[in-house]
């Protein structure tokens, strides 16, 4: 393994997140099993108190998941000097198969935790815990994902071997690995992707606004916001990064969060993550509009979610367009 302070911090964060979620899921299971809203028994009172603990834990996990996502990329970036051929985080993540799987899981778990909080918020507005079972079922689904993420992350970091000089032969593995780790990421052609991005973004925003105003097409928007999220990530690799780096060949989606590019990546990714969580949140909550105890507030809340999702995507598009217009790179 590579014993590096940042690696230790990553593993610590992963284990803590897993621990918190498994702990929360354990009590979640108890709630699923023994919940009886009509009862005034002490067990029920205890379970109701546990819901506070679980929401607090999930809130922290959500924040932790976001921070650790960025920390993970930072770590990958700072480990690059250890590996032959790795130029930036993209290369380090290629060191083993686990690198990118962990990244994908981190994003997925962040979105799941965000959706759980959306569901939790809606549930807290109803006077009879209307979504309690769904909420804890979702929790039971998230927990294994976090655990898998932790296991893969451990495998990734613990399996790392730095390419250092060994006493027998100096430079041999440099040549063995001459092909090395590709620092470049497979990317789709820039120009077609650019049109796809703006096209789909236009549809997404239009659907979102239509839903916000007319209250129809919510599921469509939820699906589109997920599709848009993926397209946006692909676009970052395919053409947005090119304009930010002002290099026609550097497609790395990670370097943009580094100091050299004024940390612009943080803003881009935060907008994107916020947009997708609130966008899918719309779809998650739509089926519950008819629940008695939620009738009055849910429509308003879903509207707010849709609006914030649309605004975040709009801000993302504006930022991307700004980068493209004021970039020195011309394609």
């Amino acid at each position, binding site marked *: 393994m590579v014993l*590096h302070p940042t690696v230790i911090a990553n593993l610590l964060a992963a284990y803590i997140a897993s621990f918190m979620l498994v702990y929360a899921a354990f009590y979640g299971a108890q709630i699923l099993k023994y919940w009886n809203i009509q009862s005034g028994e002490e067990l029920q009172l205890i379970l109701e108190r546990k819901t506070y603990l679980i929401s607090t834990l999930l809130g922290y996990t959500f924040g932790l998941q976001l921070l650790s996502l960025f920390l993970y990329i930072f770590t990958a970036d700072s480990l690059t000097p250890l590996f032959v051929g790795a130029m930036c985080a993209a290369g380090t993540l290629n060191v083993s198969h686990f690198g990118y799987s962990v990244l994908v899981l981190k994003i997925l778990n962040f979105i799941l935790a965000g959706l759980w909080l959306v569901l939790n918020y809606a549930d807290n507005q109803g006077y009879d815990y209307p979504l309690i079972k769904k909420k804890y079922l979702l929790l039971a689904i998230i927990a294994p994902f976090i655990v898998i993420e932790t296991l893969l992350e451990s495998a990734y970091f613990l399996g790392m071997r730095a390419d250092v000089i060994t006493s027998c032969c100096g430079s041999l593995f440099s040549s063995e690995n001459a092909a090395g780790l590709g620092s470049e990421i497979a990317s789709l052609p820039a120009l077609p992707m650019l049109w796809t991005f703006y096209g789909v973004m236009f549809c997404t925003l239009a659907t979102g606004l239509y839903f916000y105003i007319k209250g129809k097409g919510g599921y469509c928007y939820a699906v589109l916001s997920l599709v848009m999220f993926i397209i946006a990530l692909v676009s970052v690799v395919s053409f947005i990064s090119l304009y930010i780096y002002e290099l026609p060949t550097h497609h790395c989606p990670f370097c943009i969060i580094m100091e050299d590019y004024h940390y612009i990546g943080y803003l881009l990714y935060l907008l994107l993550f916020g947009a997708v969580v609130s966008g899918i949140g719309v779809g998650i909550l739509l089926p519950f509009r008819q629940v008695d105890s939620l009738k009055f507030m849910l429509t308003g809340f879903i509207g707010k979610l849709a609006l914030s999702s649309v605004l975040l995507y709009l801000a993302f598009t504006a930022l991307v367009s700004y980068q493209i217009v004021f970039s020195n790179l011309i394609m």
Partner: protein
Amino acid sequence: MNSWIEKQRYIIDFTLSSLLRRKVKNIGLLVLYTLIVFILASMMFFTHSIKREAALILKGAPEVVVQKIVAGRHDLMPIEYLDTIKKIRGVATAAPRLWGYYYDNLVKANYTLLVPPTQTTTTNISRTTVVENEPNSQSVDLTKPLYEVNGTKLESGTIIIGNGVARLRQIAKGDYMPFLSFDGNVMNLKVVDTLSAQSELVSSDLLLITEEDFRKLFGIDKQFVTDMTVVVNNPSEMPTVAAKIKKRLPQARPIIRDEILRTYESIFNWRGGMMIVIFSAAVLAFVIFAWDKASGLSAGERREIGILKAVGWETSDVIQMKFWEGAIISLTAFFSGVILAYIHVFFMGSPVFEPALKGWSALYPNFSLTPFVNIEQLTTLFFLTVLPYTVATIVPIWRAATIDPDSAMRFTGD
């Protein structure tokens, strides 16, 4: 939204005043917390900037060094190898080096002895006179070596010494330094200059000596040199060139500069990580302490929370209050710890860790590090300190927040 902000303001105000009301308890926690952050931060700042320093200096090192290996050990290299290497396509220049170690019994320290490289642009140098005795300060500038000489010429019978050596032996320019040569004779060499302090990390224990004196001191024949440096035209061809050298001279071991950098990086990471593993016991102790503090509510605090809940605060309001409490304590401790560590490492020369992290040599380099802190370090530090604290306090906070509101009705005595 406005009322939400107003509510948070009320809660923060109340949290601050209740923190101040329990000064003694909270100051104890704060001091310990700050100390933990301080130690970890000092360590990270130190290893990080020393790593950077080393990398910066190594940038001036030769791209490829070729050594000869006999029976798995570094051995003297016949000068003939130079021609073989020069003939390899892609090699711009190659030059021999003479260097070694000298153990000084008097002060129990190892010096590094080095013959400064010479101008090798002239191609008509015959095999036997490859290493010229005339050191030229110009060539020092050209090849950007590991050390800087202030323009003094090195002549036979003189040496230029690093600052560490000067400090240890308490000698300066003009003094004589005795050496015991391979055959038992004493050689007295005159110190004509000391190396500049800029690159002290590598030049602290360095001694520059003429080739003639070097060979006399160690009894090395003119046919041999210690190793060779190679400059490659196209840096991306370096691995190919190294492979070719290895193929033509099976006894040679080419070492690429990037590999040295990587090894350095790895060693310093390892040392930093090791220190954290060692200090994790301290962090763990602190976490247990924090857990204990958070769960062992005094009767007064339980009563206060009971009153708050009785007069209309909800469990989540109390959790929010405790969240702000944790945030205030954590951020205060984190920033004071980081600032203190910054002062400790970059202004005071980190007296606490110097011996542990810089190296094992008796000749400690004495140099001030360039302040260098980045977000990655701060995030790591945050994860290693604030995260464990926060997690340790979640369950105690929840316990405190779920005190029955009607407990306030049952307080009878004061």
